[in-house]
């Protein structure tokens, strides 16, 4: 009863006549013992259960206890001394007006340090450099009359939201951090949003430009000074209205919320103007290949090209535009303004527009600025593995500076006081902030990075040059953004 499936046609030369035992593409799985089923069952029992118990014992030995402590601190709702007009503390699981004891402020962060997005670990280098500088040269942070050292506990989440939740749980329950800081990723911050809100723990400077941080239901989460993605679109639309009011626009965006923030806002903003979006294409952010999409967009010969992309897709797309022989006005997401990415794009990046809120370490214009000099001196000293010219390191340094500024402006060292201070922040000249850009938030305006400039990349010089005046969109983000992007 042999079943011979059809063979490839052709004369039976030695090449295609295979021996019957030819290596077949199948995987034959057998258990190690092919004895009779019944006797197997009997032998199996004790050994299997023993193995299970051994593994359980291993696991349990490696974990601490902890439940009894949790039961104790889980006493009802705190907030009975914490009156605040800004933040409603009635539902807090623990009292946020408790003062910190000891000499150290413990902060926690979770970011990708391995895996696909491990390039973001450079943020950590910038942060650590700043904190070490403060601890060692300035003696620490002065809050409410007392000086504290800063300790940063960091965990790796590989950019995966469920790992972030695990990490943050550990940071809150086991490490007992005072606040969270600079957690990377939109989904990652969204995943811990409820947890942080319930526990009334500050999550400061979430490292993404998502407009979702304007959601007023979550007062314990503060976004960062990255320009919010919708504002980028407003800036570019204003630019186009001046330069080419009847421009046709082609859009390439990432297929996720990041890309949608650009595309949806843009669609909203061009309504009522002479600008027209002629085509929109998406790409999978986990794959970064954009050649076919760009070819498709290039065929429209649109006047402008909006690139709502990040990481390697940016230079990829810019290169593809060049190869297609297309020469539109290009706008690129602010998250791509890094020397590394632009170097990869090479001449294809020349003339690309974007936004910037930090001083570019590669721009000789800032070389003599005291804050830039400080950065360039201290980073190699306190974080020698970091590349000072990398924009990501600069970002980490600046956000750490923001945190220290927040702490120092806080009247006392309680979570509530610090969060309230963060919610009413109004600063300039912090870290590597642009001199003209002052950052502020208040009750009605929850977005930080609303003052910035447009920049244009000069491939010959190798850095971003300021284009036009400083743009001030203070308080405008909410009105520009489609509401479902904020409250979704």
């Amino acid at each position, binding site marked *: *009863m042999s*079943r011979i499936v059809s063979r490839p046609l052709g004369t039976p030369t030695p090449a295609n006549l295979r021996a019957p035992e030819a290596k*077949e593409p*199948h*995987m*034959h*799985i057998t*258990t*190690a*013992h092919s004895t009779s*089923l019944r006797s197997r069952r*009997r*032998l*199996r*029992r*004790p*050994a*299997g*259960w023993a*193995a*299970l*118990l051994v*593994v*359980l014992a291993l*696991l*349990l030995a*490696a974990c*601490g*206890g*902890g*439940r009894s*402590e*949790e*039961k104790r601190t*889980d006493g009802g709702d705190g907030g009975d001394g914490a009156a605040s007009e800004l933040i409603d503390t009635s539902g807090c699981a623990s009292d946020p007006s408790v003062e910190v004891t000891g000499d150290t402020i413990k902060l926690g962060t979770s970011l990708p340090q*391995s*895996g*696909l997005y491990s390039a973001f670990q450079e943020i950590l280098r910038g942060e650590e450099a700043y904190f070490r500088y403060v601890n060692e040269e300035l003696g620490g942070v002065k809050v409410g009359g007392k000086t504290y050292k800063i300790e940063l506990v960091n965990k*790796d989440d590989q950019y*995966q*939201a*469920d790992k972030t939740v*695990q990490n943050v*749980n550990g940071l809150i*329950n*086991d490490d007992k951090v005072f606040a969270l800081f600079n957690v990377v990723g*939109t*989904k990652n911050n*969204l*995943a811990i949003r*409820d947890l942080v809100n319930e526990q009334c723990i500050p999550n400061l400077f979430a490292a993404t430009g*998502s407009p*979702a941080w304007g959601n007023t239901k979550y007062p314990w989460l503060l976004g960062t000074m990255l320009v919010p993605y919708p504002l980028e679109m407003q800036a570019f639309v204003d630019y186009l209205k001046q330069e080419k009011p009847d421009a046709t626009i082609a859009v390439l965006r990432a*297929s996720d*919320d990041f890309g949608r923030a650009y595309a949806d806002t843009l669609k909203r903003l061009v309504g009522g103007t002479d600008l027209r979006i002629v085509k929109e294409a998406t790409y*999978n952010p*986990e*794959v970064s290949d954009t050649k076919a999409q760009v070819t498709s967009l290039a065929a429209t010969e649109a006047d402008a090209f909006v690139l709502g992309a990040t990481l390697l897709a940016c230079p990829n797309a810019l290169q593809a535009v060049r190869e297609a022989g297309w020469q539109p006005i290009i706008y690129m997401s602010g998250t791509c303004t890094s020397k590394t990415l632009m170097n990869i794009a090479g001449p294809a990046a020349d003339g690309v527009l974007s936004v910037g809120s930090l001083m570019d370490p590669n721009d000789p214009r800032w070389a003599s600025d005291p804050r830039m000099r400080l950065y360039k001196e201290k980073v190699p000293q306190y974080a020698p593995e970091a590349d000072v010219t990398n924009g990501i390191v600069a970002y980490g340094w600046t956000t750490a500076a923001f945190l220290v500024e927040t702490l120092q402006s806080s009247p006392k060292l309680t979570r509530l006081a610090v969060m309230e201070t963060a919610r009413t922040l109004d600063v300039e000249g912090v870290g590597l902030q642009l001199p003209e850009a002052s950052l502020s938030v208040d009750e009605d305006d929850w977005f930080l990075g609303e003052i910035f400039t447009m920049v244009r990349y000069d491939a010959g010089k190798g850095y971003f040059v300021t284009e036009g005046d400083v743009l001030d969109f203070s308080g405008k983000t909410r009105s520009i953004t489609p509401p479902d*992007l904020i409250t*979704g």
Partner: protein
Amino acid sequence: MPARPTPLRRAGPAVAALAVLAVLAWLPQYYGSTQTALFGRAIAFAVAALGLNLLTGYNGQVSIGHGAFFGFGAYTTAILMKDHDWPFLATLPVVAVAGLVVGAAVGFPALRVKGLYLALVTLGLAALFPDLVTRFVRGTGGTTLVQIPKVTAPGWATGFAPQDDQWRYYLVLAVAAVLALLAWNLVRGRFGRALIAVREHEAAAATVGIDLARVKVSAFAVSAAYAAVAGSLLVLVTGLANAGRVETFQLSIDFLVIIVIGGIGTVLGPIVGAWLFVFLEDWTKQVFPDTPLLSPALFGVALILFVYVLPDGLIGGARRVTRRLRRRPPPDGTRATPHPEVNPA
């Protein structure tokens, strides 16, 4: 023909099972919420591995796509809970049935596509699923993250589960225990024997009247249903459903690793494997706190070494040891030491 097992012998496994269940139930009483979440994860993975084991271990069809079924179950539960206010337990029957259907749908083409090619087609599934999620799911903040409303312990349970995460763990444990029992029953009955027969020799199995198509498709269906429910369980533990290409691949591969290190073709294997796996995951993260880059490396190396030493998994290895011990003749004075062992290959 071996003698009939005594009543004591027959009660053995039941007692052992109850003992293990008791230990598992005690865990959240002593351990904090971080560890409890870890245990919940191990249990959810065990359920998924049980399912995959039915398909790959007992039936020999290799699937590297069970992360897709897992995610499917997770999102079904999460969306029903978030957008339609369903209670968690009510979503499980839906997930199970949907899992059966989807599994069967994949099982039919699998009749024709075999072995390595089937494995790669399922890999394609694992790549496709996150794209479908990106396209059709609008979760929190416009992302593909779907967060469920909080599941709290009902009044009558606050005695033994004063904290909500303990209650969630008990729910997960209860569902998993039922599914494990079900799996055990399936495996020692006709279905289990049919699965093995089909794996060993399809033609012979057909000769004795086994309907090949039905067995193979059912295997796919049941294993997919298990994976889907496991996904729902994990949603309960973490509070969210999330699927990216990396995550879905990783899950698919994790399940495969689990059944191999546990021991293919046993019911306890996937369970032991899942706990061992979660332990290994956690441990490798803590060994190099300053260089998180090395954790995956350590994990990979640990995996390779494990498989060298115990190619038939922990259960297989344990059985080998037990068999060796049993073969040893009782000391009776005529020999100073027992005979050297002939390795039962």
